[in-house]
């Protein structure tokens, strides 16, 4: 790992661990069981961010708050949000990218947080359903539209639906019912509230127009 960080503000910078962390981790890595590890390090080789059984520190923003937390390298963003940060809005439906219940935004793009390694959000901005309401505490137009159109039954899929729907509108993929259905197909609703969901998005797209 080179002494200096590459200068342009690009994604590689955001992902790079700070030198202080790298040192702290590599210091820990020279413990008894891993004593030989340092010898295998070539000059230009990236410093491991986490070794087996070790936690790694990730720094990121959630709903505008700076977070620094230790995570297991195996942990998903979904598990860190729910188990460590007590943000239980995003739901675990399938844990395999198939249902959309865990949808959150990372750097403004919707993703499946169950298939996102928490280690990958270093330096990123995460938005969850808890951070969606407006500063004065009033509901986001999409939340209001879901209420107005009765776009749910049990509500389990709803936080994921709403986060996906907000992104769907922001991406410009809500110009017709057919387009809404296509771009919302990653969010399964076991209660079958789809008619209300499409109506809510159609409505909120108009309200959000100035976005």
């Amino acid at each position, binding site marked *: 790992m080179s002494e200096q960080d590459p200068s342009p503000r690009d994604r590689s910078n955001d992902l790079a661990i700070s030198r202080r962390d790298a040192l702290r981790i590599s210091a820990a890595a020279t413990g008894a069981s891993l004593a030989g590890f340092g010898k295998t390090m070539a000059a*230009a080789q990236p410093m491991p961010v986490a070794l087996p059984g070790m936690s790694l520190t990730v720094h990121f923003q959630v709903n505008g708050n700076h977070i620094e937390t230790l995570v297991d390298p195996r942990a998903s963003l979904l598990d860190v949000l729910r188990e460590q940060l007590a943000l239980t809005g995003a739901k675990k439906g399938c844990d395999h990218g198939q249902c959309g219940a865990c949808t959150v935004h990372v750097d403004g793009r919707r993703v499946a947080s169950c298939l996102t390694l928490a280690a990958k959000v270093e330096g990123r901005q995460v938005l969850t359903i808890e951070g969606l309401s407006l500063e004065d505490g009033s509901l986001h137009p999409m939340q209001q539209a879901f209420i107005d159109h009765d776009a749910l039954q049990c509500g389990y899929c709803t936080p994921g639906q709403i986060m996906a729907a907000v992104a769907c509108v922001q991406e410009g993929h809500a110009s017709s019912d057919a387009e809404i259905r296509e771009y919302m197909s990653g969010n399964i609703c076991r209660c079958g509230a789809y008619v209300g969901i499409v109506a809510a998005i159609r409505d909120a797209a108009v309200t959000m127009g100035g976005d």
Partner: protein
Amino acid sequence: MQTFTYSRARSINELRAVQAATGDRILAGGTTLYDLMKLRIETPDRLVDVTGIAGLDEIISHPDELVFGALVTMSDAAAHPAVLQRAPVLAEALSKAASQQLRNMATLGGNLLQRTRCAYFRNGTEYPCNKRTPGSGCAALEGLDRGHALFGGSGSCIAVYPGDWAVALVALDAVVDVRGSRGTHTIDVASLHRLPGDTPHVETVLEPDEMILNIRVPVGRLAQASTYHKIRDRESYAFALVSAAVALELEEGFVRQARIALGGVATRPWRVPAAEAGLTGRRLDRATALEVGRMTFADARPGRHNGFKIALGAEAVADALMIAAQRSENR
């Protein structure tokens, strides 16, 4: 899930160094690899995250070639104006795959190397599976084979290659630039994936330490009059039952050149040169298109539950040819 070492490479040189020293497994979007690690089918003990490597997340539109960095996301490629205009088959193959959430995460390089969705493979040690545990047998051969291959299967494995993007790429004769201990070299996408043979667990011709850097696609009249037609169990967000990637060059209604590749029905992306030759020089109308569609499936070897894909596939190819022909006229 077992524990693993996690590191981040910020340049190809860093990646090369870590590969040479400790042979870490590449992690891109993780939508295949992390998924299969949760299922304990993949058990890497070292992962190197390559998504921070600069310079591999661009699409460049040259006069006769589109170049895709391996780290471009599926969603960015699907929405790129040059891709939509110059090679619609590529944009459609991407936008009809997975969901927008996954397309925002998944990379074009990782996509090529996604693994089969065979339920016996994914469901764990309860079932024999030569791909998961070499030598254990194949549960699908005597089991439910509705989703399994009509082409390219062996007595060891009949699992379908599930991706869409690679099918569109082979239709356009695309190549990948690869870097690893053998140096930098170029491979046709058509020869990237292996037939299962006796070693279904060996899926590609890549060495473990090789990284795909770029995907390059020749584009011209043929690529412009192209389409990806995907038939699924539901309207959206499902793998292909059968899909057809088609490109045409027409001259006054007569076919000068045709490309036909199939997805969802073969153990790897499947070009059908015999059907391409059968169409060349002919006037294209719906009857001819259907005849060629049937020709495309002439060598199909169905199992017990997937025979329906022959008629379905013939219609899909015919429809794709008619859509591509329309695009040729509208040029």
